[in-house]
């Protein structure tokens, strides 16, 4: 996001843009307080960001009541369904998009496989696994044990031994952050890598957060994700990002950038004036935006982006680095949206 602003000299559609950053610490109470501060004290025109779904959901009523256009990057399905709001635009994926496509890929590759699922036991993990399981079952796949672990689990050793005993044909998983790193390292320590195919959500194998920390433990694993450093749309962003001394970008940086591109697009289409948000919204939804996440049309029902979902395989790239490499792309995946 900051990169995009620097590239455009802090000017979008001929208007100087002032960029204010607040840290929500992934805690809803603080996120809401910060958002109210930005709205009430700093009088911002647009809010964007918020990776944590919990914070995003908590913000939903606040920004809707204050009528502030908001670009939320949290991915809870509800953000595109029950909690959709005319003031919220969602230039990122929903959890369903990834769980659903992962099931399609798995079933396509290993039609007879018994799939075991393992995930962090909180909202996102439940959604990913739930959506995976639903689709997988509909396709006629066979589901094995479902394993849940507490968020912030210290030791996955016992779990690895359990999985080794279960001998599933494929494992679908979701972890993020420190959980992902620990899981993948111990996955290798217990020699499960290479023996059991592991497929998961993109964040589980995030290019920036996770892969550098796990060495070759993730080699050969597959994930479904709206972001991939090897996707053509991301190439220009990759270069600009790495020029600032950073590694290959992962989800958060790419989504932030794409979010900025969407904001820029709506500002440009409205000549820099979005005080009439109803019109601005229509202008944004009228035609797709080209972003680092690719061609991005929006679903006018819920402001949810319709995205290409890549199937990434973790392969060894130049210099032995692990790189999420696109092996397939599901075009224009659209969340079922609000029940009508």
């Amino acid at each position, binding site marked *: 996001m900051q990169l995009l602003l620097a590239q455009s000299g802090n000017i979008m559609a001929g208007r100087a843009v002032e960029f204010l950053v607040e840290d929500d610490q992934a805690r809803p109470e603080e996120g809401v307080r910060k958002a109210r501060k930005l709205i009430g004290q700093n009088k911002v025109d647009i809010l964007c960001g918020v990776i944590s779904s919990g914070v995003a959901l908590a913000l939903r009523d606040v920004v809707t009541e204050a009528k502030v256009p908001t670009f939320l990057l949290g991915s809870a399905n509800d953000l595109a369904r029950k909690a959709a709001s005319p003031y919220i635009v969602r230039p990122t994926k929903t959890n369903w998009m990834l769980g659903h496509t992962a099931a399609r890929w798995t079933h396509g590759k290993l039609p007879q496989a018994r799939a075991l699922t393992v995930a962090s*036991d909180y909202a996102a993990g439940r959604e990913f696994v739930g959506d995976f399981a639903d689709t997988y079952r509909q396709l006629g796949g066979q589901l094995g044990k479902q*394993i*849940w*672990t*507490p968020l*912030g*689990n*210290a*030791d996955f*050793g*016992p*779990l690895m*031994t*359990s999985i*080794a*005993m279960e001998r599933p044909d494929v494992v679908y998983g979701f972890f993020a*952050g*420190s959980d992902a*790193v*620990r899981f993948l*390292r*111990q996955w290798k*320590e*217990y*020699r499960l890598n290479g023996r059991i195919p592991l497929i998961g959500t993109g964040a589980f194998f995030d290019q*920036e*957060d*996770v892969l*550098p*920390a*796990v*060495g070759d433990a993730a080699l050969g694993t597959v994930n479904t994700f709206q972001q991939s450093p090897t996707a053509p749309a991301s190439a220009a962003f990759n270069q600009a990002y790495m020029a600032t001394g950073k590694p290959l970008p992962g989800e958060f940086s790419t989504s932030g950038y794409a979010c900025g591109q969407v904001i820029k697009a709506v500002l440009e289409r409205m000549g820099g004036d979005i005080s009439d948000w109803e019109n601005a919204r229509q202008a944004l939804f009228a035609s797709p935006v080209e972003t680092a996440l690719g061609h991005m049309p929006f679903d006018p029902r819920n402001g949810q982006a319709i995205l290409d979902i890549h199937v990434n395989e973790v392969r060894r790239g130049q210099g032995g680095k692990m790189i999420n490499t696109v092996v397939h792309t599901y075009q224009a995946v659209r969340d079922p949206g609000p029940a009508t």
Partner: protein
Amino acid sequence: MGYALVQILNALSFSALLLLTGLGLSVVLSLMNFINLAHGSFYLLGSYVAVYWFASGAPWWLAFPMAFAAAALAGALLERFPFRGFYARTHLMQVLLTYGLSVIFADLMRWGFGAQILSPELPEALQGVVFLLDIPFPLYRLFIIAAGLVLGVLLWLLLDRTLWGAVVRASVSDRGMVEALGIDTRRVFAAVLVLSAGLGGISGALGAGMLAAYPGLDEEVLVLALITVVAGGLGTFRGTVAGALVVGFALTFSKLWFPEFANAAAFSAMAALLLLRPNGLVAPRQRQV
């Protein structure tokens, strides 16, 4: 059968880590009656040292003495100020001071080492795996168990079987007398704190391969270590061993038996233990009146 054995080994490896971390905490608590909530910071410092050391290409086993030295140095500096002035203060004041310091260190380390998750590239020698009745078990975990055992025994010998240990214990029970013998008790206490900090560092280096290293880990480890020490009964050596085993096994087997309620089950078990034995598993004898 093999399954049970490997799960027990899993629990043991986690217990060994808890033991080493808990021992650092319980040494200062039992010998100096000082609660150091900055102990998690020593652990995390040790983890970071190990991550960088393993990546540097230098002989890998030196990572552990290096982590010990780094944390011990930090401990020595802290001992001079402000710990020294707080040995005689109430537990509450010690808790507050050291908790505040741990918040500062957490942010300093986030500043210095970055917010990303770091995980060490383990040396070849520790990467292997042994098959126990056809079930794989990582060599690295056996190494942790062995290290926990060896360091635990060494520490016990040092404190219980050497002259230095006798001096430490005497300094605690009768400071005036020991000083009359010409021994500077302040240096004794400083040495104990440095040892404790070093233990924190070395357990961090050992644990890095299992738990990785990232901001916030210091707090997680501290809470586990505190529960270990307290469940064992404050500050006896045997108690900490018992506490580490109980916490390690509770956290491991609750995951297997009640996967969805693992933490709640483990915490309830520990709370129940403290409810039944309000002074921990191995309570030091104390006179009431």
